[in-house]
């Protein structure tokens, strides 16, 4: 399923995150890149250099918006002013879909600027799905929610993470941004089988896939996005493609960012798995 209603029936290939240290290279060398993912919040300002750079990118590249502060899982109502700013950006970028995380991070108007894990409860699923629906109706673009990596679990949880993800996306009738690295990180931190997770989510809703590197410590893994993708994560990626079909894929590299070529080369490794999937289907 190269295209579905959760990614606006697009057929995007392998992209990378747009990062400031790469601007110079991109503008000078104009490399061929299928698409860039931008962090919406970095461009939800009123003017200046960020928007100038974005407009230059938009002249030549396809861009998809990925957010970090919608906090669909916060128990509070959506912030209308925030949504208006986001919609302005959606109009500017013409993003085919918008993604953000299945998490919370603010309470009583105070922001942690983190992607905090959800308690996997029906009440949480209900409020989260409602906010995703409202956001989609306001922005008028499909929404995909991303599974986050986590380091803690709640006593109060009433289901597993993959059951919660399924509950939310089916209630909201939205897409999934499937982060296979996050599944790997959480499977280590919480002791579950990552393939069991993959096999038990509605694959037909996957709009996009994230791949990334992480930092392993003795007792836990931190999702640092500062390394190449490790083999077990590529294996999960291959399985995700088997289940969901060829899907728009993006490599995240956010810290200790190497050269553009190095990041792009790492991302393009995904093509090998995509080709294998296409061959298998053929």
């Amino acid at each position, binding site marked *: 399923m190269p295209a579905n209603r959760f990614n606006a029936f697009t057929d995007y290939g392998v992209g990378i995150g747009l990062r*400031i240290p790469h*601007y110079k290279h991109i503008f000078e060398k104009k490399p061929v890149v299928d698409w860039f993912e931008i962090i919406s*919040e970095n461009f*939800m*300002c*009123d*003017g*200046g*250099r*960020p*928007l*100038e*750079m974005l407009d230059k990118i938009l002249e030549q590249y396809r861009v998809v918006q990925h957010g970090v*502060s919608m906090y669909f899982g*916060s*128990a*509070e109502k959506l*912030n209308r002013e*925030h949504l208006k700013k986001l919609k302005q950006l959606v109009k500017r970028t013409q993003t085919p879909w918008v993604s953000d995380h299945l998490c*919370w991070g*603010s*309470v*009583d*108007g*105070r*922001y*942690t*600027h*983190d992607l*905090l894990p959800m*308690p996997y*409860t*029906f*009440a*949480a699923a*209900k*409020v989260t799905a409602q906010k995703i629906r409202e956001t989609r109706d306001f922005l008028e673009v499909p929404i995909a929610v991303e599974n986050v990596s986590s*380091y*803690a*679990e*709640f*006593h*109060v949880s*009433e289901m597993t993470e993959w059951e919660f993800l399924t509950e939310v996306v089916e209630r909201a009738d939205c897409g999934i941004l499937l982060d296979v690295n996050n599944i790997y990180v959480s499977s280590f*931190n*919480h*002791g579950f089988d990552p393939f069991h997770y993959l096999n038990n989510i509605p694959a037909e809703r996957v709009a996009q896939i994230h791949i990334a590197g992480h930092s392993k410590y003795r*007792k*836990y893994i*931190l999702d640092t996005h500062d390394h190449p993708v490790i083999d077990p994560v590529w294996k999960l990626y291959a399985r995700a493609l088997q289940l969901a079909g060829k899907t728009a894929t993006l490599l995240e590299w956010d810290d200790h960012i190497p050269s553009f070529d190095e990041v792009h080369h790492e991302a393009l490794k995904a093509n090998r798995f995509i080709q294998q999937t296409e061959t298998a289907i053929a």
Partner: protein
Amino acid sequence: MKRSKPTDSSSKPKPPSPKRQTLGELQDLQRLMAKTVMRPLTPAAKMNPCWTDGTPTRNVVAGFIKPNDRLTAFERLQLYNRQYWFRLLDCFYEDYPGLRAVLGERKFTRLAREYFSACPSASFTMRNLGQFLVHFIESHPKLVAPENQLALDMARLEWAHIEAFDNAAETPITPDDMLDADPQSLRLGLQPYLTLLRLNYPLDDFLIAVRRDQGLRHEASNAMENQRKRLPNKFKNFQRSKTIYLAVHRHRNSVFYKRLRADQFALLTALREGSPLEKAFAKAVESGSAARFQPKQITKWFQDWSALGWFCHRVEAKSK
């Protein structure tokens, strides 16, 4: 006819299904977790072992977080607690290199810790982390003593830099637009990205040097850097008290610090406060430079400022 459910007399009574979480309980849980995550770390960068009421934090945390076979609930939540503070401090370090240079690492970190404890982020973007800092320093002078005025000036200048970097730019008014206007009633707006500052220390060159030295926000400050190819240690004069007037602004999407004369500052400040042009001139004259205040010169100022795009329609006027 309604049929009753078949009963299974052979099955054992089922355990009552666990009580499901309510929306109110979800909110309470998120409040409790946010409070834990946002609490200041110990000097050793660990989660505070003592809860706000004096009980052990581990007991509070164990009440809502599960342990696993490698980490206790306390250790698991500590990962979030540490990440929260490291993230804020990283951003603060990057946005306020000048204040860090003025206060030194220890005092700066203490200020950051106290500031974020009192004023947690109230915005979706970390760009606004420093929005209450000037006010906080004013109300907590001990934290920056004895460099009080210096620290306050630097915090003002660095916040103005952030505002200049990406605040809105309204459509500029050109001198032609002003030609037929009546100076008694003409009220000009100043661009939202422009901040006027009266500082007690000449911090502009010092901050330019510090920023260049640290290679921060390079995409914003190239223009300033190109102007001043000198090293920070050549800017020691910043500690000698001397009043300066600055316009912190943006031109072709680069941030600049432009020195103003006292009368220019008075004139622009009056315009920003909503005085009509003629009244603003009068205020500038009152500022004490009347002798040098020639019409020809004023025309030149307005030409320069218009060329920089500083004037725009006032927001109230627009909304009317």
